[in-house]
C-alpha cells in the first residue's frame, strides 16, 4: 500500500475540518474521513422533521477563534453569525430576570431586583473582560510541559510566567480563584440576587458533571466568557443555517485549499507499522495510505479504539482510562406550530429572539445536580432554550418554529441504563418543566427529538456523550489535556496525531485544537 495522502484526518467534526484546512493550506494532500453521512460531528444541521432544521447538538457560537475565521477566510465560504441578544430567566413567582443587548436596559432591569447587583454587574463585567484577556493568549498556545527541560517548553513557560506577572496581583488572584472555586461561591462574592447568580453560574456547569457548588465550576464559567465575536467578549450568536453551516463553511475552505472530504467512510483502525502510522483501514475493508494520520476523535477512541493500546505506554493508557467523560447533558429539539407563550412575558416579544434560561435559583440547579449525583436525570433540569427560527426564519416553515433545549442533568450512567422508555420519560420531564413557565408549549409540539448522553455517544461517537470530549476540569486542562506529557497533539506513534476537543484548549465550536494540532504537525514536518 502506497501513501496516497500526506495526511488523513479521522472524523469530520469541526476540529478535524479546521486541522484539514490548515494542512491543505500548507500544501499537504489531505483527506477527511467521516463515518456519518454529514460532516460536522456535533456541529451539524439536520432536517429531523420535514421542513424543520435543527442544530441537532451544538447550537450557538461564540468561541470560534477569530484567527481561524481570518486564516481560512470563512466569511467567503459562508460563515454568517447572527446576533443572539438577550437572556431571560423566568422566576417561580411569575416575574423574570432579563439581560438585554442594551446595557442601560439591562441595568434598569437588574435594578428592579437589586440595585446593588446592578452596580456590581458593571464591575464584574470589567473583571471578566480582564480574565478573558488574561486567558486569551493561552488559547492560542501549545501547552508547555512544566516537567520538561526542553528549550521549547522552557521558553513557553517563561512566556507564560511573564504573561501572568504582567496581570498584576488583583487580576492574578481573581484568576486563581476562578481556577479553583465553585461558580456559586465565586458569584456569592459579587452578587446577592439569587436568580442572577443561578443564571450566571449555569455557564459554569454546562457539559460537566459538576453542580454550581462544586469546586472547579468557576473555570467552566470563565471558559464560556472567553467567547468573542468581532472583538467583543462574551458575545454569543447563531449561525445562519444552524451550526452545521459552520462545519460546511470550514469544509468549503478546506476543499478550496485542495482537501478532500468523504462521508459515510467509517475508519475501523489506524494502520501502524514499526511504531509508525501508515494509513487507515475503513470498516468497508478499504485501506488508504498516508504519512500522517490525525484523529479528531476523543482521547478514548483515539488511544484505545483506533489503535491497539498494547502499542502504547502504560502511563498513557492508564491516563486515558482515568480521563473523565461522564456526559451530563441532553438535548431536546422541538418542532413547534407556533410561539411559546411565557407567563412572565406573554406574547411574541423580543425575549423570544434570545436565550431563555431555566435557572430560577441556585438551589434549583443544585437539586437538579443532586438527582444526577445519585444516577437519575433531573426531575426539574437546568435548560438553555433558544428559538433559532426567530432569528433565522429559514430554519422552519413560515410561521412555524424550531426550539432547541439544552438540558442538564442527564447522566450517562443512569441507574438501570438508558432505554427508549427512560429517554421519553426524560423528554416528558423537560416538557413538563418547560410548561411551568410556558403553559402552551405542549399544545404546540409537532415533533420531539430527545437526545440523551447515550444517544449523543451513539450518533456522534463522543464517549459517554460528553459534549467537550472530556470534562473541562482543572485536572484535565492545558498541559494535562488529555494526559500529562501527551498534551501537544502528538502521540507515541510516529505520524499519529490528535486534534479533537480532548486536547488543549477544548470544547465548544472553537476550532483552536484543530488549528494548534495542524500547526504542530507542520512545524514537526518542516
Amino acid at each position, binding site marked *: 500500500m502506497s501513501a496516497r495522502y500526506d495526511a488523513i484526518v479521522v472524523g469530520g467534526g469541526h476540529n478535524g475540518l479546521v486541522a484539514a484546512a490548515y494542512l491543505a493550506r500548507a500544501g499537504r494532500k489531505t483527506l477527511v474521513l467521516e463515518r456519518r453521512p454529514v460532516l460536522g460531528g456535533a456541529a451539524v444541521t439536520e432536517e429531523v422533521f420535514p421542513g424543520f432544521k435543527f442544530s441537532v447538538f451544538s447550537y450557538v457560537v461564540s468561541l470560534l477563534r477569530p484567527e481561524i475565521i481570518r486564516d481560512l477566510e470563512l466569511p467567503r465560504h459562508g460563515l454568517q453569525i447572527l446576533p443572539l441578544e438577550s437572556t431571560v430567566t423566568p422566576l417561580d413567582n411569575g416575574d423574570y430576570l432579563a439581560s438585554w*443587548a442594551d446595557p442601560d436596559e439591562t441595568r434598569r432591569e437588574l435594578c428592579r431586583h437589586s440595585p446593588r447587583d446592578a452596580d456590581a454587574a458593571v464591575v464584574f463585567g470589567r473583571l471578566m473582560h480582564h480574565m478573558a484577556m488574561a486567558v486569551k493568549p493561552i488559547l492560542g498556545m501549545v501547552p508547555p510541559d512544566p516537567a520538561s527541560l526542553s528549550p521549547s517548553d522552557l521558553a513557553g513557560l517563561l512566556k507564560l510566567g511573564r504573561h501572568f506577572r504582567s496581570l498584576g496581583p488583583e487580576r492574578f488572584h481573581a484568576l486563581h480563584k476562578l481556577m479553583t472555586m465553585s461558580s456559586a461561591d465565586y458569584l456569592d462574592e459579587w452578587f446577592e440576587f439569587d436568580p442572577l447568580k443561578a443564571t450566571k453560574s449555569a455557564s459554569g456547569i454546562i457539559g460537566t458533571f459538576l453542580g454550581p457548588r462544586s469546586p472547579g465550576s468557576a473555570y467552566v464559567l470563565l471558559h464560556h466568557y472567553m467567547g468573542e465575536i468581532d472583538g467583543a467578549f462574551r458575545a454569543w450568536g447563531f449561525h445562519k443555517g444552524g451550526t452545521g453551516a459552520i462545519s460546511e463553511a470550514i469544509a468549503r475552505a478546506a476543499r478550496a485549499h485542495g482537501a478532500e472530504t468523504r462521508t459515510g467512510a467509517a475508519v475501523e483502525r489506524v494502520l501502524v507499522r514499526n511504531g509508525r502510522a501508515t494509513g487507515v483501514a475503513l470498516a468497508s475493508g478499504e485501506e488508504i495510505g498516508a504519512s500522517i494520520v490525525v484523529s479528531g476523535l476523543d482521547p478514548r477512541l483515539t488511544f484505545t479504539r483506533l489503535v491497539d493500546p498494547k502499542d502504547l505506554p502504560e502511563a498513557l493508557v492508564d491516563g486515558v482510562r482515568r480521563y473523565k467523560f461522564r456526559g451530563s447533558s441532553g438535548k431536546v429539539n422541538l418542532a413547534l406550530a407556533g410561539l411559546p407563550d411565557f407567563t412572565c412575558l406573554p406574547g411574541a416579544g423580543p425575549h423570544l429572539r434570545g436565550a431563555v434560561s431555566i435557572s430560577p435559583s441556585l438551589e434549583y440547579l443544585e437539586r437538579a445536580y443532586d438527582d444526577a449525583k445519585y444516577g437519575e436525570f433531573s426531575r426539574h433540569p437546568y435548560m438553555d432554550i433558544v428559538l433559532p427560527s426567530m*432569528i433565522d426564519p*429559514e430554519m422552519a416553515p413560515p410561521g412555524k418554529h424550531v426550539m432547541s433545549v439544552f438540558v442538564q442533568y442527564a447522566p450517562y450512567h443512569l441507574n438501570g441504563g438508558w432505554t427508549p422508555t427512560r429517554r421519553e420519560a426524560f423528554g416528558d420531564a423537560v416538557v413538563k418543566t418547560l410548561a411551568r413557565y410556558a403553559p402552551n408549549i405542549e399544545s404546540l409540539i409537532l415533533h420531539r427529538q430527545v437526545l440523551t448522553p447515550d444517544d449523543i455517544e451513539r450518533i456522534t461517537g463522543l464517549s459517554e456523550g460528553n459534549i467537550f470530549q472530556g470534562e473541562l476540569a482543572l485536572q484535565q486542562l492545558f498541559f494535562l489535556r488529555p494526559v500529562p506529557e501527551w498534551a501537544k497533539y502528538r502521540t507515541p506513534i510516529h505520524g499519529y496525531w490528535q486534534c479533537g476537543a480532548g486536547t488543549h484548549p477544548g470544547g465548544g465550536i472553537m476550532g483552536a485544537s484543530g488549528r494548534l494540532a495542524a500547526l504542530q504537525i507542520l512545524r514537526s514536518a518542516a
Partner: protein
Amino acid sequence: MLKTSPFHPRTAALVRAQTWRRWAGYQMASSYDPLPDREYAAIRSAAALLDVSPLYKYRITGRDAMRLLDRMVTRDMTKLKVGQVYYTPWCDGAGKVIDDGTVSRLGETTYRLTSADSSLRWLHMNAAGMEVAIEDLSERLGALSLQGPLSRAILSRLSAADLSALKYFRLLETTVRDIPVGISRTGYTGDLGYEIWVDASRAVALWDALIDAGTPFGITPAGVWALDIARVEAGLIMMDVDYFSAHHALIEQRKSSPFEINLGWAVAPSKGPFNGRRALAAERARGPRWSFVGLEIEWDSFERLYRAHGLPPQISNVAWRSSVPVYLGGRQVGYATSGCWSPLLKKPLALAHVQAPHFGAGTPLEIEVTVEHHRERAHAVVRKLPFFDPERKKA
C-alpha cells in the same frame, strides 16, 4: 420643524431609543432598537423594511421626456427600455457630478427620476425648449425598500405579479392587497431587494400589509444605521458623505467627476450631447487623477495598535462618516470618507478617495486610526468594489 414621512405613524411607534436623524429635511429613524445589529442582520439573512421616502422623486412625461433625461445624465437613455431602471450620475458642464439617482422608464414617454438632492430647477433648466412636463412627486409618493434574501418570498405572498421574472433593475406595476404600487428590483444594500412606490395616502396600509405578510419571514424594520453598513459593504457611494455635489461645493477641489468616484462605468462612451460630455471625454482619454476605492484594513496591524495599550480592538456597531487620511510611505495620498466593521466579512472596511497611481487593487496603503487618543496608522489594502456581491442580488 422637520417633515415626517408618510410611514411615520408606524415607524414612530417603533423607534424605542428615539434615535432620529435628519435626511433631506425629514425626521427618519437611525435605528429602531438602540443598536442596529439585528436590523443589519435582517438585510443579509432575512428581510429588512426601510423607509426611503425622503428621496426626491420626479415624474417626467411628454414627447421630449427621453431627450431631457438623456441630455441631463451620463448614461445613454435611448437604450432604457420600458420597465427598466438605470442608476446614473449627472454632471454640470465641466463634467463634475451634481447628484446620482435612478431613472425608471414607466411608459413610452413617462419616466421617474429619483435623486438625493432637490433637482427641480436643474430639470427645468435642461428642459428649455422641450415638450415635457415635470412633476415633483417627492411628498406625494412614499417609498419603502424591502431588502434581503427573503424579500422576494414576502412580496410574492402579497402580489399576483410574477416577481421571480422581475430581473435586476426592472420594475412593474401591480397591487399589494388592492393597494396600487410600483415595485422595482433596486436598493442600496447590494443584496436581493425591492423598492416599493406607493401613493402617500396608502402608505400606512402598505406598511401594515408588508409587516403582516413578512412576519413569518422575519421582516424587520431597519433604520439608516443598518443601511449604512450594508451600503459600505456594497461599495455604494453617498452624496454629501463620500462626495460633494458640484452645486454645493464651495471650492473646486471638492468637486468630483464620475471617473473619480468609481462611476466611470456609468458614463456612456458614445451618446448624443449631454452635460459635461466634452470634459468627460477628455478625462477618459487622460485617465482620472483620483479614484474611489475600497480599503480593507488589515486585522493584525489594527489589533497590534490596540494591544500596545492593553486593549482589544474597539469595534463600533455603526458605520462612521468622516474624513480620515490615507497614506503611502508617510505621504498622504488620499482620504477615506466612510467605513464600518463588516459583521458579515469580519473585517474593518473603508471607502476612500485615492490619488493616481495608488488606487490599483492590491496596493498596500495605510489609514489613520485613533487609538486611545493617539493617531496611529494601520495597514490597509486597496480592494475592488463591491466588498460583498452575493449571487442572489441578480439571480
